[in-house]
């Protein structure tokens, strides 16, 4: 953990010091719509049904809206992961499907004292709801598992503006041309789930084959967890002349729910994504 903190601090402070301060500034009031698509890998370990870790391969799509105001940022959106969890053992191979939805609402306030024209710090909180549907036919009646995790997160954001200056280049060592100034914004988001409500089967998983035609979630229970994981997002945004942006990002998320209990659920995601960000105001 020390190693991780030192690297984050080094990078954040280092980048702040070496950034350029020129005419490229944060807009005071603006609004963006973001659509993104990406590829995710990860793991799941659902102790209710298996001691083994299944590997995730999924597509990730996201739709969100960000509203920037002089004092802070609002962001809300939905993430969807669709794909499969698979497991290879010595003599067998298991493939199962998963659908996941994450709803997110965040407000972060600008830390004016610490920020400058070219970089900004924000802290805030977010409400997040993560629904995981996992269908593994190998588990028979317990094939279907639904887990719903609601988090109240502490959020930290760091945004840095910089310009890649124009430069003279040669095409095929012959034709001279000059590149334009390119504007970039680097974003770093950290989110720590402070308190989580975890709704999932408690001790056994009766699944969808029910003996009770009126009960939908037999054997489910809500548990409360504290500091259940970590989420980070690092992205590089290329800002176009009209204010729209291209974003290239990496997102990492880990969650450990109901630790040390028979219903322990461990999940992790690594996502590489590309976004189109449209400035709407």
């Amino acid at each position: 953990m020390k190693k991780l903190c030192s690297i984050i601090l080094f990078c954040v402070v280092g980048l702040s010091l070496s950034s350029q301060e020129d005419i490229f500034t944060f807009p005071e009031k603006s609004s963006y719509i973001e659509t993104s698509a990406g590829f995710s890998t990860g793991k799941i370990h659902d102790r209710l049904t298996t001691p083994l870790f299944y590997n995730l391969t999924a597509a990730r799509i996201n739709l969100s809206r960000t509203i920037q105001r002089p004092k802070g940022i609002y962001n809300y959106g939905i993430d969807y992961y669709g794909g499969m969890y698979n497991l290879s053992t010595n003599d067998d191979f298991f493939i199962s499907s998963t659908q996941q939805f994450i709803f997110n609402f965040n407000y972060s306030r600008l830390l004016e004292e610490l920020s400058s024209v070219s970089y900004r710090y924000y802290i805030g909180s977010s409400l997040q709801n993560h629904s995981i549907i996992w269908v593994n036919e190998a588990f028979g009646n317990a094939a279907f598992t639904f887990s719903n995790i609601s988090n109240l997160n502490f959020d930290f954001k760091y945004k840095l503006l910089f310009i890649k200056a124009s430069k003279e280049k040669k095409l095929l060592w012959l034709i001279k041309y000059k590149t334009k100034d390119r504007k970039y914004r680097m974003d770093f988001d950290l989110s720590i789930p402070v308190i989580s409500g975890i709704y999932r089967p408690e001790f056994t998983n009766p699944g969808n084959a029910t003996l009770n035609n009126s009960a939908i979630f037999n054997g489910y229970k809500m548990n409360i967890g504290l500091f259940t994981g970590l989420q980070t997002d690092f992205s590089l945004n290329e800002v176009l002349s009209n204010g729209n942006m291209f974003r290239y990002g990496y997102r990492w998320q880990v969650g450990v729910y109901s630790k040390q209990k028979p219903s322990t659920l461990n999940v992790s995601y690594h996502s590489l994504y590309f976004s189109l960000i449209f400035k709407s105001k």
Partner: protein
Amino acid sequence: MKKNKYIIFLFLIAFALVFNSCEKLFFEKEIENNPVNNFEYLWNEINQKYAFLDYKRINWDSVYNVYRPLVNDDISDDSLFNVLAAMLNELRDGHVNLKSPFNISRYDRFYVGRSNADFDVIRINYLKDNYMITGYFKHNFIKDGQIGYILYSSFSNSLISDYELDYLINRYKDTKGLIIDIRQNGGGYVSNVFKLLSAFIEDNTKIYETQIKTGPGKDDFSVLEEVKIKPRNGSKYLKKVFVLTDRGSYSASSFFSVSTYATENIKLVGDTTGGGLGLPNGGQLPNGWTYRFSITRTIAVNGENYENGVPPDYTVILSETDRQNGIDNVIEFAAAKILE
């Protein structure tokens, strides 16, 4: 500016590497896959989650003492499978299986008791050549058209449709009674139980109560939840219905049978069912083999737990002499009761 570019690059790489390795710090360690751990894992799962250790008076610690010495880290997969399968069969439960790529363990129906039906006799002398097949129901009139005989061999083929039920009820609406034969019906979808029963009731009916294992203690079950069914909207048959059962009537067939205790017009005839009133829950061992065992229990409307079999209202065992003469005395008994 160049300096910036490289720092971002370094940052991306460091970030990815650090966090990729970091998640291992958050997760529990995976259980090592070796024969002893696989044995211990399965034994513990049953010990904590199986719903009927107490009901069946199984001393699971004694079972451990018998089978644990047979497992060591040098044992072959075949031998390990055989030991685990034998241990699971101590539960005497058709809902318990262990599945590996080379074998599936099971507690077969023939362990429970003999068949109380001869399907050749039924086809030749009761269904006859002109019997009809509607969905998965084989049926015909018997006793000069006074009774409808319906053979339902499995609850697992597909979900019963409204069309099928309407057809059956309309065809036999003028009979004096129906015989539904679920002997040797090994079960299937419980939803078919609700569907079929809904054709024979007039009002909302509580058919049984159910509860789920919620903790490692013997009595750690959820509160009993009432299970009710509604009469279907379409045609209904409210005259006498006799359901024929035997030891091969398992799982969903036992659910159907135990539910008839809640009705006035449906009676059971034949032998005690095979039981199987617990819902099997699936899971996986550290070596990837999968298993299932019962994690719920069902309580009949009379307060009894019939996991080992639902007794009939009228016990009638197939007579060997009658069978050789082409007579099914279980059907004959039910028919006589209808015509009384």
